[in-house]
Structures are given as C-alpha cells and as structure tokens.
C-alpha cells in the first residue's frame, strides 16, 4: 500500500474500529448470511476480572509457612451433612461438573467417572439422565435434576450419591439448553424419549415448581423418595448470588453450587453466553456473605465453578470462602478436547485448536463431544480417565503448595486475608485489598 496518493498527499494509517472489531464484523456477516444467531458451546470468552487478578501474599514474619512435602495440608471435604444421613466425603475439593450424555459421548462420560474416582472425587450426570457406564465407573455420582427431566426416573435417583437440582447455569442464567439433531442418536433419543434427529430443546425452568417456596416442597419430595439419605445440591447461575444462595438455603439445600459466566455449556446462543450473568470472581463473596448472614457458612457447603484452570484458581476460590470447586471445560481439555494434535481437522472446520466450540455439531475431532461412532473411536476412556486423574492430582498439589506457603494445614483454612488484588475491579469483586494498599472499593467505613 502506498503511503501517499497520486498528488503526494500522505494517507492516514488505516484504523480499525475499537467498536466494529474484526470479530464484531464477522458476527454481522455471519448473521446476514444465515438469519440465525450463532450457537456454540463453552463459557464466556470475553476478558473479565478473574482469579488471575488476585495474588496470594504467602508467609512473612507475621505468618509462618508449612514445610512442603513434610507437613500435612488437608484437602478432604464433606458435602451435604446438613440434612443427609449419607453426606459425600471427597478426598479433594475439586469435583467434576455436570455434563450430559448426549453432549458428550458415552466413553467420555466413562472417562470422567474413571478419572474422578481415581482422584477420590465425584462426577455429575447432566441433561439426558444417568448411563450405566457412568454409574459403574463413578464411585461418587451426583445426579442432576434438570428442568427437562430427560431420562429422569426414581430408580436412578436412588442410585445417586447426591442430587443436584439445577436452577441455572453460568453460561446461560435463565436459559435452557439445546442439542441439535445431528447429536440425537438412537440411544440419546431413547433416553430422552424424543424422535431421532430433531433439534432438542431443554426447558429453562422446572415444569412443576416456581419460586423458593415451591422449591422447598420439591426438595421435601426428593428427600422423601430417597429416604433423606443423600445430599440435595441446588445449582444456581452467577446472576444474583446473594439472594439465590439465601433462597436455596432457605429452601433446604445441603449444598449450593454457584456457576459463574465462564462456566461452559454444551450449546446455547453466543450472545447469551457473553452478555448474561456475572464473572465467577464477582459471585463468590456475595454467596459467602449470604451463608454467613444465615449462620450457615461451612454448614451448607458452597461449590464454585466457572473458569477453574489450575491449583491457584482452586486455592483462590477457597480462600474467598468456597468449600470446593467444580470443573467442566478444564476436564474436557484434560481428556483431550481442543488438543493441537487435531489442528488440521480443526482448520477444516474453520477453527483452530483452543478455539473450537461448536460442540453441538457433533464433529469434534477429539471424539469427546460427539455421538459419531467413527469419531468416538478416537477417544480411549481408560487413557482419558488416566489423564483426568493426573490433572486433578496436579490441581490438588498446586493448591496445597499455595496453602502451605500461606501457613495453612488444610485447604479450608485459606481466607480472604491471604489475598490481594491487582486491579480495582478485582479488589471490589473479591473484597480483598488492592495490592500495596489496605483498601478495596466498597470497603465499609472508607471513602474513595
């Protein structure tokens, strides 16, 4: 490109709009060509304040550390002791979030069970019901009770180690799911009692209750059916965490699962994923405050999900008051999703490793988010389970490393006082001091 015109007048530098970015323009072109909104899987991809914006302080003269590899740092957690006679006892405070058979292949669900069980933690069913291979390979299995009630039956309910009533999901607070026709195989269709090949919609709200008073009665029914043996979780999206947590506890939940906007979904509208809900970081403290205000912190456990990637994220979520975390997207990556070894095939699908999110289309080169028999053969559930176990162990070791450095002999002893924030936004959301200060926005009895 010439830097001046024929008259010798210099061109200005071509300037891309900060508003009409290349991404935004490609969305417009796609919409104009198709007339249909973009559907994808995963969670929010936009940059939002996150655990990366927090740092641990570590030990100092006033805090002394524990010796790595020598002194014990506990990681066990008991979930659901409020009402259940058989609460869930996990070796590590990292659980596997709900993901459906249908969205994932049967072998992928098997691998999640294998890996979680080997690491001493639980896995969770999803929209579509419980498969025998999932139950068989999961030493502790949480059964999701979803609005669609696909595959829902009392026999599987009684086989579960806990029940998770799903009210909302971080990727789509207030929205239902969908599974496009190409993934409705014979088996998926049979489990969901739907015709094969249709675009299956999952309801956005439960068919037989609305509001917290009804939820309390629904929980009573589920407890009566299961003999008050297993914990009842209530999963809420990161929308109004203070009130949702309060109402879930009031309704009788043993455990509250809180899913921020970075938490993934199998498929929904991109505009929904990116524009509805709050970042995980913004949700934890309000939820913890709700529990504290009710005198229920640590009695009703809080599981946080949405963007957990490494042991530091685990430790930070727990320092802010969570009892445990759940992982979904990270677990899929550990299994092999978005692996660069499939780059040529991702390119053929118009994407690249790391960015592939059309899980609903069933063409996953890694053979994980598909029902295509040939693609599924690429995925070995035994190897996948081993990889997930390894990953869970690394997360645990990393979190322990940080906890010991903060002088904690149990992960649950981490506290907000161990943290500082790198940005004003993160300081405000996490309610920990901006680094180098003793202040955060909104701190009581202070002014800006």
């Amino acid at each position, binding site marked *: 490109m010439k830097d001046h015109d024929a008259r010798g007048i210099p061109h200005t530098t071509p300037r891309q709009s900060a508003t009409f970015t290349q991404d935004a323009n490609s969305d417009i072109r796609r919409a104009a060509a*198709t*007339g*249909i909104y973009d559907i994808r899987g995963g969670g929010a991809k936009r940059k939002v304040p996150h655990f990366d914006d927090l740092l641990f302080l570590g030990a100092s003269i006033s805090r002394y550390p524990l010796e790595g590899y020598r002194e014990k740092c506990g990681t066990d957690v008991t979930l659901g002791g409020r009402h259940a006679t058989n609460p869930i006892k996990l070796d590590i405070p990292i659980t596997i979030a709900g993901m459906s058979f249908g969205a994932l292949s049967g072998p992928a669900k098997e691998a999640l069970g294998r890996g979680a069980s080997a690491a001493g933690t639980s896995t969770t069913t999803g929209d579509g019901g419980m498969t025998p291979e999932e139950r068989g390979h999961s030493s502790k299995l949480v059964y999701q009770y979803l609005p*669609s*009630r696909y595959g*829902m*039956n*009392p026999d599987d*309910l009684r086989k579960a180690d806990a029940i998770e009533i799903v009210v909302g999901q971080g990727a789509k607070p207030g929205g239902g799911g969908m599974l496009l*026709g190409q993934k409705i195989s014979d088996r998926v269709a049979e489990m*969901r*009692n*739907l*015709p094969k*090949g*249709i*675009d299956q*919609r999952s*309801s956005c709200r439960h*068919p*037989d*209750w609305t509001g917290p008073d*009804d939820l309390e*009665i*629904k929980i*009573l*029914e589920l407890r*009566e*059916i*299961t*003999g*008050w043996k297993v914990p009842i979780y209530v999963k809420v999206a990161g929308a109004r965490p203070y009130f949702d947590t309060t109402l879930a506890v009031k309704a009788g939940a043993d455990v509250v699962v809180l899913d921020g906007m970075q938490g993934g979904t199998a498929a929904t509208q991109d505009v929904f994923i990116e524009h509805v809900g709050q970042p995980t970081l913004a949700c934890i403290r309000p939820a913890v405050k709700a529990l504290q205000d009710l005198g229920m912190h640590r009695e009703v456990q809080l599981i946080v999900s949405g963007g957990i990637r490494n042991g530091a994220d685990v430790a930070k979520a727990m320092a802010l008051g969570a009892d445990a975390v759940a992982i979904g997207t990270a677990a899929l990556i550990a299994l092999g999703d978005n692996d660069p070894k499939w780059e040529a095939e991702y390119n053929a699908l118009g994407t690249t490793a790391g960015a592939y999110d059309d899980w609903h289309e069933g063409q996953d080169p890694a053979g994980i988010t598909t029902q295509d028999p040939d693609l599924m053969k690429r995925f070995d559930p035994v190897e996948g389970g081993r990889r997930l176990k390894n990953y869970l162990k690394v997360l645990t070791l990393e979190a322990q490393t940080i906890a010991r450095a903060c002088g904690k002999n149990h992960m649950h002893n981490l506290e907000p006082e161990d943290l500082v924030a790198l940005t004003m936004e993160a300081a405000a959301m996490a309610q920990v001091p901006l680094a180098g200060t003793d202040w955060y926005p909104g701190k009581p009895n202070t002014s800006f």
Partner: protein
Amino acid sequence: MQTFDLEAQGLRALNSTLHAQAENTNQTQWEIINPKGSHAIAVGLDAPIEVNVKGSTGYYCAGMNKQATVHVHGSAGPGTAENMMSGTVIVEGDASQYAGATGHGGTLIIKGNASSRCGISMKGIDIIVHGNIGHMSAFMAQSGNIVVCGDAGDALGDSCYEARFFVRGSVKSLGADCIEKEMRPEHIAILEELLERGGCDAKASEFKRYGSARNLYNFDVDNAAAY
C-alpha cells in the same frame, strides 16, 4: 386394610412404611387418614399396592409412582403424579397445576378438572380428565395421551412432540406447532381404550385429536415468529 393416620404418625413414617412394601407384600391395601393437604404423600412408591388417601392432598402426591395405585378421595395439589413411571393415580376431585408433569408411564385419572400445565413435558403417561384442563396444558409434551372430556384452555400442546391430545369440548387456542389432526381408526381404538380405562361416560366419536405439526422439530429462521 392397613390404616395410617398421617397427622399422628407423620410423613416420614408414612413414606418409609410404604417404601418398605416389597413386590410380594401381602399388605396390599392401605388407607391414609387425615392427609389435610400434606405434601409429598405416597411419593416414590414401587410395589403393587393400593393406597387410598381419605381427603385432599398437597404438592406432589404420588410423585414418581411405580406400580402402585394411589386413589385420592378429595382434590390434589400441584404436581400430582409428577414423573410417574407406571401404576395408576386417581383423583376424585380436582387437580391443581402440573398434574402428571413429565410422567413417563402409568395412568392418571382426574374425575374433576385439571388446572394449568396439565401434562407438561409428559413422556409417555396417559392422563384422562373427566372435566376441563387449564391453559398451557401439554406444553412440550413428548409422548403419551391426554383425554379431556370437557374443554381445554389456551395454548394447548404448545411446542409438543409426539404426544396425542383428545378433546371432546372446545379448545380455547392451540399452542405453537399444535394442530388438529385426522382421527383415524387407530386413534379411535386408542381413545376407546383410554375412555374405558378412565371410566368416562363418553363416546370416542365425540372427540377431536390434536398433536404436533412437526414444523418446529428443526430450527428454521422462517419459523422464528412461532417461538
């Protein structure tokens, strides 16, 4: 006949006692007195027993029922026989909203009227209503049958799948993708059996059949206005 005083003995004792009945129990007849609108009465049963509830019930009576016959001698609150798998539930009076919601099988007979969202997301249950049903009934109904001897409210069968709806009276409006369909001989046969099962004094020839037009089974932007 085993008699259980719910007010005196409590809900937990009731359901645990009923759950303890095995497939071959000889205690097959149960009478529950003083239900007084309690919630979650006789939920999760899984034995061929008959339970007569002498009075009205609250939410979720006979929820997730398998095999058992639960007979409510009164009216029933929301979510009666929700997610039923098999067996029979009979309500002598009226049923509140969500009756038979997500039911997979079995028969729900309502001698009075059913409120809104009757049969919502039903997955194989047969629901026979002697009276009327309320608005948004059979929303996203997947399979099974609803028989309505009276009238149906607004938006019957909205976004339904393969469920069938037989209505003798008027339908205030049909929901998205729900249409009137031809009543062929096989449907007459199905309806006659349902009417007999439900103890209805009605003739199959008096009914019209409704079901999915199947236009919304796969997303098409040209149908966006229907959603």
